[in-house]
């Protein structure tokens, strides 16, 4: 139990997907204009990453390993994730329409989110068992949600500011992202 909690803490803060590993920077910059859309994206990623963490674990353990096809894991995982996202989208549209419309366009976008693929690959690399795999997927996505929501809050503040013209818009966004990553780097000193 203790090592699961440690693993989650590490995935959320110490090895934050965006600030420490630089995975999923595209949605991080693209969908962080408003705090509520950022939270929507974070929720969608959390949902998909948790489920895909478990499913890809099964595919790897019971399909790829027995046939010694580990070298094809990237292709296999992308296939699984794409199908999974499609399935989840249909499922939500039918049974949880409120969540479906809240997630909107972000759900299909996750198919190409590298954070999802990398979490599946890291799970394999670190030899996690099933529970650890699901916990890792969930908490890594939680770290992603934390990062994107905090950043969206920052950007909302920055919109009200009046920076020099050359910094307006995207340049300032990138600088703020860098500063935030530096702030998060203080967690890298934590050894658990």
């Amino acid at each position, binding site marked *: 139990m203790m090592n699961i909690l440690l693993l989650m803490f590490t995935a959320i803060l110490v090895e934050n997907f965006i600030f420490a590993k630089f995975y999923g920077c595209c949605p991080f910059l693209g969908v962080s204009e408003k705090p509520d859309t950022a939270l929507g994206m974070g929720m969608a990623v959390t949902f998909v990453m948790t489920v895909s963490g478990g499913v890809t674990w099964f595919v790897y353990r019971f399909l790829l390993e027995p046939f010694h096809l580990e070298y094809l894991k990237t292709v296999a995982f992308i*296939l699984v994730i794409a199908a999974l996202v499609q399935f989840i989208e*249909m499922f939500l549209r039918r049974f949880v329409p409120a969540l479906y419309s809240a997630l909107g366009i972000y759900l299909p976008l996750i198919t190409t989110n590298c954070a999802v693929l990398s979490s599946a690959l890291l799970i394999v690399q670190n030899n996690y068992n099933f529970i650890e795999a699901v916990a890792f997927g969930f908490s890594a996505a939680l770290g992603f949600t934390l990062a994107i929501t905090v950043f969206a809050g920052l950007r909302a503040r920055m919109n009200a500011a009046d920076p020099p013209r050359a910094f307006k818009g995207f340049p300032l966004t990138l600088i703020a992202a860098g500063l935030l990553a530096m702030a998060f780097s203080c967690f890298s000193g934590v050894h658990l």
Partner: protein
Amino acid sequence: MKPTDVLIPVLIFAGMGILFGVILAVAARVFAVKKDARAEQIAEVLPGANCGGCGFSGCAAFAEAVVRGDAPANGCRAGGAACAAKIGEILGMEVTAATPVRAIVRCSGGAGHANLKYHYEGAADCLAAERMSGGDKMCATGCIGLGTCVAACRYDALHIVEGQAVVDADKCVGCGACASVCPKHLIELIPADAKYCVMCRSPEPGALTRKQCSAGCIGCKICEKQCPTGAISVNGCIAAIDYTKCTSCGACAAKCPRKIIREL
């Protein structure tokens, strides 16, 4: 290398592909969402240009909003009265057409009237030119004339004439797609039956406007005094017509010393 080294991965991946395909196909059937048939009927009578003039992302989104009651049945500007009547038939209610509007480019700086501050040689796009210190015109509210609005128009109603955009009132449906892309915010939607319009948006003082352009509003307020119904007001050296009060008498246009208020 044995042939099975190739065959097994191919079979496994083909199997996975087929399995996922079947699962998704079944899921699509099982999880199918019943759509309101009226939304599809409405989408069929809409123009289908997806111009976005109604404020929704496309004709289908507008149709669904009408069925839900989130959008007025006469909300499609492009379709006009005929379209509103058809939607009314489908919904089984009386629908009156909205006041038709048309777009107008509020600038007269074409044909060499506006003075240039530099010679622009870049991408033929107003947004790109706007980045270069606000375009090549000295006037900060002058039409750049590179046709970003022309490209945005789905009804072939905008053309560049003598270096500035001009709206063809016969073709314009008032969707406002051009107005939302113009970096200078020069394009306005005015009532389609409006007779007169102030063809300038420069809020600069008269002396400055004269330096920048030989066809700019100098804020002399003659029109304001001429107007019998008080429809014209001059705010910050630029005249504006309130079309709810305008009676199209033409007194303003007759006396405008710069010939900026023009009959359309």
